[in-house]
Structures are given as structure tokens and as C-alpha cells.
């Protein structure tokens, strides 16, 4: 499994797409972080008048890290789209299928390979707030738990991207399909529905509704379970797909 994960991880460093994504992401992080700081300085006077004014950490996590998590809905599918689809197309998946490795090792290896890369990108996002250490007190616990939240969303997005990549030979189809699913999951609870039961059910299903606790520094088992369950579901479906590949004629459509 480690061999497969290492290859997947290294392959991303050899691909121009991954470097471009990393670069754009970095520009975005820097710009967004600076504008968040700017905002904080502007409204600092007004905040000081409140009974419990939010500290710089809370302000930064909500205004800076939370929007970053939404970016993962597009970035993860772009990074995972080649994982299976490209291997089907190049015929290299045969190498994995004929090697004495289990299908679960293939699926988990590929997942962790890409996930490690996404985690690395997210750590870069965290470096920006960390530079505040020099000028003010930073709440490390909140910041790290926010990173955990981002990693949870990343796991969900990566596993969904993997599933769609394993379903098709076309990388772009995989990316678009998984992005669409993730965006729908993200916004599903935000629209008013006449029945309160359905509204509540959709709200529970929505990814965005489970992130708040992470950014507030709260440990909510309900939200953790949500991410673990959905990620496992997508990984499980990918395993079923890979198990059944032998039945299909041309390895994916």
C-alpha cells in the first residue's frame, strides 16, 4: 500500500497541473489572508466595544480558513481525476491488477497518496496565520482544530474524487462529476424547503453545516462522525468498483 501511495504522491509532483494548482492556491491564500487582516484592523475599534470581542484567531479562522475549505470542492477532484481514469486509459492499471496486492491496498494506497499532497497544501495555508505569532498571541488549539476541519473536508473531497475517477476513463468527466456532487452536498441545506423534517434532514446531510464546530475550536462527535462516515462510504464504493472491474470489458467507460 505504501508503495502505491508513494508513487501516487510522487506522480503529483511530476504533473504540471498539481504545481499550477499549488501555485494558484498559494496566491489565493496570501491575498485572502492579507485582506482578512486588513478587515480586522479596520473594524478593530468597533469590535473592542463588544462584551466578548472575537480575538484575531477566531476572526482569521472564520474569515480566512472557512472560505479556503470551499476551494477544496474544486481542487481535490482536479488532483484525484487522474488516479484511476488516466491509468485505465494508459493501460497501467493492468500492472496493479496483476500484481500480488489486494484491491483494498490499491484503493487505500491511491487515496493516501493524493491525500498527503492535499494535506501538504493545507499546511501551507496554515503557515499564514502562524506568522502572526511574532506580533500577537495566537490560539494554537483553535488554529490546529480548524486545520483538522479542513483535513476532514479534504478527506471527503478526495474520496469522492477517487470514486468518480474509478468510474470512468475520462479525467475531465471524473473531475466535473465529483465537483458537482460535492458542491450539491455543500449547499444542500441552504435552501428553504416547506417541510421542516426534510429541511432538517438536508441540513444534516450538508457538508457546510458540519464545519462550524471545527472553526470554533469545538470537538463535536456528530460532525466528526459525519466526515468519517461519508469518506468511508466513498472509499467503500471505490473498492466495490475496483473489485468488479474484471467483469467489465474495456476497464471503465
Amino acid at each position, binding site marked *: 500500500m505504501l508503495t502505491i501511495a508513494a508513487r501516487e504522491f510522487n506522480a503529483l509532483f511530476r504533473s504540471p497541473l498539481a504545481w499550477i494548482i499549488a501555485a494558484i492556491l498559494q496566491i489565493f491564500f496570501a491575498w485572502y489572508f492579507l485582506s482578512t487582516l486588513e478587515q480586522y484592523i479596520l473594524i478593530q475599534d468597533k469590535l473592542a466595544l463588544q462584551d466578548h470581542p472575537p480575538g484575531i484567531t477566531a476572526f482569521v479562522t472564520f474569515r480566512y480558513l472557512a472560505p479556503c475549505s470551499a476551494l477544496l470542492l474544486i481542487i481535490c477532484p482536479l488532483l484525484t481525476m487522474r488516479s484511476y481514469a488516466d491509468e485505465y486509459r494508459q493501460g497501467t492499471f493492468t500492472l496493479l*491488477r*496483476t*500484481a*500480488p496486492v489486494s484491491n483494498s491496498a490499491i484503493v487505500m494506497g491511491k487515496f493516501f497518496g493524493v491525500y498527503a499532497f492535499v494535506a501538504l497544501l493545507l499546511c501551507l495555508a496554515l503557515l499564514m496565520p502562524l506568522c502572526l505569532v511574532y506580533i500577537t498571541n495566537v490560539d494554537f488549539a483553535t488554529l490546529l482544530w480548524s486545520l483538522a476541519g479542513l483535513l476532514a473536508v479534504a478527506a471527503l473531497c478526495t474520496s469522492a474524487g477517487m470514486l468518480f475517477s474509478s468510474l470512468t476513463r475520462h479525467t475531465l468527466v471524473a473531475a466535473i462529476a465529483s465537483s458537482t456532487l460535492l458542491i450539491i452536498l455543500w449547499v444542500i441545506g441552504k435552501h428553504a424547503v416547506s417541510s421542516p423534517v426534510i429541511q432538517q434532514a438536508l441540513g444534516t446531510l450538508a457538508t457546510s453545516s458540519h464545519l462550524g464546530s471545527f472553526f470554533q475550536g469545538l470537538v463535536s462527535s456528530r460532525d466528526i462522525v459525519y466526515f468519517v462516515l461519508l469518506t468511508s462510504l466513498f472509499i467503500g464504493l471505490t473498492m466495490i468498483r475496483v473489485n468488479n472491474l474484471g467483469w467489465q*470489458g474495456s476497464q471503465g467507460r
Partner: protein
Amino acid sequence: METLLSAELLTRWEGDRCIAHDVSLSLRRGEVLGLLGLNGAGKSTTLNMLAGVLTPGSGTVTIAGHALHGNAGESRKARRHLGYLPETPPLYMDMKVDAYLNYCGRLQGLRGKALKQAKQAALEDCQLLSMQKRIIRNLSKGYRQRLGIAQALIHRPDVILLDEPSSGLDPQQMIDMRELIIRLAQHHAIVFSTHLLSEATAVCSKICVIHEGRVIHQQELSRHSDETITSSTVRLSGNPTAHELMNLPGVINASTGIDGCWHLDVQAKLHHQLLAAILEKGWLVTEFGPRKQALEELFTSLVNDGRVEQNLERSAPREQTFTDQTIAAGHSSSGCYDSSDITSLANEDAPTLMLERESP
């Protein structure tokens, strides 16, 4: 010798089309099996099923005593003894040759020193030493093909499956490839598919002809020249008759071949006497040598037989007359098919095809 690979009654359907029908094979250590067939005959499908890439609808594949399509553990054990080169070599274009072979070795469970040695041996066997640091994308087709083969044998598996290993190779590389296969065959069991009949004759100990997803012929080939009867091609001036030739020393059978030559079945070690007798008769000899095309003729006649049978099935109402014609054609004086009777064969070069089936 132990049986390393055995496939029983492999069948696979895709939609309502049967692309492999009751394919059975078995192979012992030291044997080389050549899969022959036209394009789309089902060679690659069969190899894919033998390699575990495709799951057969029914039937079993056993490699070194483990069921390939059985439970996950058994299947993994079976794959430990398997090396496979698919039709398109499974190469990661962005990797270097060296790194790629390291990856393949690790997938096969090789580590450390064992991996280094295995990689070195594979690079030497496939003459890739000078290419180690090159990126695969920049390799020529021949080198890519060789790297594909290196990948299949890096862990020295008992069973090696090669799907058209010589495609894209130049003539010298083809000869090297044959030598490599013959060398590997001493300790492994090898199955390979090919269009090149000369290649099959050169390296195979067994051939298996597949047509329309069915095995229509299996035969052991002898690579040694110690047979009691050998078939020779002779070209003579002076128009001798078959009867005259049959009376020459050592000749057991004489038949006409392509463009006026004769195919003679001659008893071993009597060739020089035969040649002397021919020269004594005053006939001028322009060609005298072993009959190289025996396999080609066998193959073409088998495949054409398959087509005739299909046509029979399709034109069921005329079955009786058609069959009669076919039989008449089969028994024509020279023992050749006469294509003029069979419209479907009109475009083939069937008139001069000899029938050389095992059962008359």
C-alpha cells in the same frame, strides 16, 4: 514436470457476443505456448483472463496450484507466480526507467538487495542498461516494449504471459527476443500470442490456434531435428510426376505446393541419397530445403475451415449441397481446397493451401 498453468473451460460473454468459448490450456515448466489467431480472434481476451485482468463468466485458471479467480488470498498467491505483458505495455510515461522497475519490483514484494539484483538482471536480459536514467516518454517503441517485458519478468515468475511481445521491435531485437524467450523457457512456463508464424515456429513447444473465441487446434511442436520424417520443399525442372518422385529413395509422400514446387516427406538421414537420385535422373534442382511454411499452411487452412463452418451455420437451408461441395473440395486430386466451389473463399489464396490436419 509440474503443471504451472492450467485453464479449464474459460468462457466469457460481452453483451450477447461470446468472445471466448470453453478455452482450455495447460502448461508445464519449460514449455512455451504460442497463441495464434487472426485479429479479434480472442487471443488478448484469453490472455487477460489468464492474467486475472478479466473475470471469466465460467471456468477456472490455476497458477502454480492456486486459483486465480478464487478468494482474495488465493488469487494473490497465484499472482505472485505471474508476470504479464499486456498488448499496450503498462508504462508510466512520466517515470524514469530505473524508478519504474523499482516500483514494479516493490509491487511484487521485492525489497532492498533482492530488488536491486532483480532489477539489474531484468535490465540486462532486456538490454536496457544504457536507458536506465531515461524518462519513459522519450523511449522509442522498441525500448518501451522491452521495458514492458522487463516489468513482466523482474520477479522471475513461474508463468510469463506475453501479448504480442515482438510488436514494434526491429529484426535484430526480434531475434534477441526469441533468444530471451528460449532462455527463459528453461525455468519458466511462457504463453505468448503472436501474428508471426515464423516466431511461433522458432520458439514454441506448443501452439494453440484460436478462432472466434474457440480453440480450434492444439499441437505440440518439436523444435528438434531428430524426427524420423521431415518435410522438404524441392523445386525441379523437368516436370516429374508424383509417381516418379515417390519412387525415389526415402520419399514417403509427394505433393505439389505453391507455384510449382514439390513438398516431399522424406525419411530422416536419406536426404543426400535423395538428392543424388534426383541429379542422376537429370532434373535440375533450383531449391532443396526444409519446408518452412508448414505452420503457416496449417494455420490458414484451420482458419479457413472455421470460416467454412460458420458459413454453413449461416446458410442452414443450403446446408446439404454446401457440405457436399466442401467435402468434394477437400478431396480434390491434389488434396487442396478448390476455392472455385466455395464463394466465400473466392478472395483467399486457398487454391494452393495444403490440408495438414492431425486426423484425416
